[in-house]
């Protein structure tokens, strides 16, 4: 289908392309790191035997009992097989921000100030959430 025939904007097509590739990479990362986790390619931070005793606890108690970091503290544990999985999860969480960042210049170039503002505010909201400013434990 020719996008022009149905007036699909350039921003929408760019957003779709970035989303497509970002999601593929994120899912491959997630599945690959999970395979490494269950196959025991490197030691997990929380061993499976301990995990089964702790996963019924509320998250704050679980974190305290398993010495698990909050926020982006998992990056320090990314070599451990369980926290390696966070690479794929965080990647999936960042895909939408990247797509909005890609679409924003298009709105600005067309002088679509309302949508440029909506995109900029959305990027700020998502980036603030990703940074752990809302609800993260510092």
């Amino acid at each position, binding site marked *: 289908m020719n996008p022009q025939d149905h007036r699909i904007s350039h921003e929408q097509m760019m957003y779709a392309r970035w989303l497509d590739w970002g999601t593929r990479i994120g899912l491959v990362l997630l599945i690959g790191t999970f395979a490494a986790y269950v196959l025991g390619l490197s030691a997990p931070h929380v061993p499976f035997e301990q995990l089964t005793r702790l996963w019924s606890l509320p998250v704050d108690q679980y974190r305290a009992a398993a010495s698990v970091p*909050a926020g982006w503290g998992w990056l320090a544990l990314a070599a451990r097989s369980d926290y390696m999985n966070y690479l794929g999860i965080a990647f999936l969480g960042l895909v939408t921000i990247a797509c909005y960042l890609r679409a924003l210049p298009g709105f600005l170039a067309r002088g679509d100030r309302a949508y440029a503002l909506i995109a900029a505010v959305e990027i700020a909201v998502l980036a603030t959430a990703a940074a752990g400013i809302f609800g993260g434990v510092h």
Partner: protein
Amino acid sequence: MRKSGDRLRRASRLTRIFLILLALLWAAPAAAADAAAAPWWIWPAALFAVSFAIGIVGVLAGVGGGVLFVPIVGGFFPFHLDFVRAAGLLLALSGALSAAPALLRSGMASMRLAMPLALVGSVTSIAGAMLGLALPTNMVQTALGVTILAIVLLMWRAKRSEYPDVPAPDGLGAALRLHGVFHDPAAGRDVQWRVHRTPAGLVAFAGIGLLAGLFGLGAGWANVPVLNLLMGAPLKLAVGTSGLVLSVVDTSAAWVYINRGAVLPVLVAPSIVGVMLGAKIGARLLRVVHASTVRRVVIGLLLAAGARALLKGLGLWN
């Protein structure tokens, strides 16, 4: 005669699926009570199986996986609800992210329509996620049960309109140029669309975002009726745009759970893979299975899972 025989066979196949799912769910609490004694791999394997089934029936019934996943896994598996809600959000997010590119390219999803609604929803979903992590578990569990039972009612009663009549756009919708055209391959024609009641739609999406963040449900069950019945978007555009809105709203809330450390890979990865594979099978079965029958099965499952969540929250069935 042959038709009624086929129908009977289909109905009996679905009844068997429903009974197997129900038996699995009923057996789970007893097993969950002794979770620490069971080998760890039992749980990801069981999650994969249940998520696979959820993926199949979710597609057939036209609901996302998240709305089935959270009450079922939260009610019948040993994981704390904090981890289940985070997994539910990531599950809904992965599905929405995977489906959105094709919908955007075909024009079945409108970025222009999605962006203002997603902005409101993403702010309130962050608030919902924070609220969910701050409230006592039994309160969240009870509210989840009530919400799921309300969704059952909504699914049972809600009507859909293929091409709603929008006599005139509202001021805000006109200012944001919330209109367009998409090609409907089934109808073989281009469909012009515009929306009305944009301010009411924004308020509705604020509420939907709050619920999505609070319960980790995804929100296709609410997005589509609001876009279609309240704002007047054609049904196919409403379904496509709902997925795009969901991908943004769930991303915001998911970060709150990720930053709190509420993501257990052993729960998240098998569930995502299970639902995605199940959804592929479900999409193939769409041609041969009666959607209305599956819808009844899903309503039955949600009724059981909602009642379980409510009773668990009230401390009547732990």
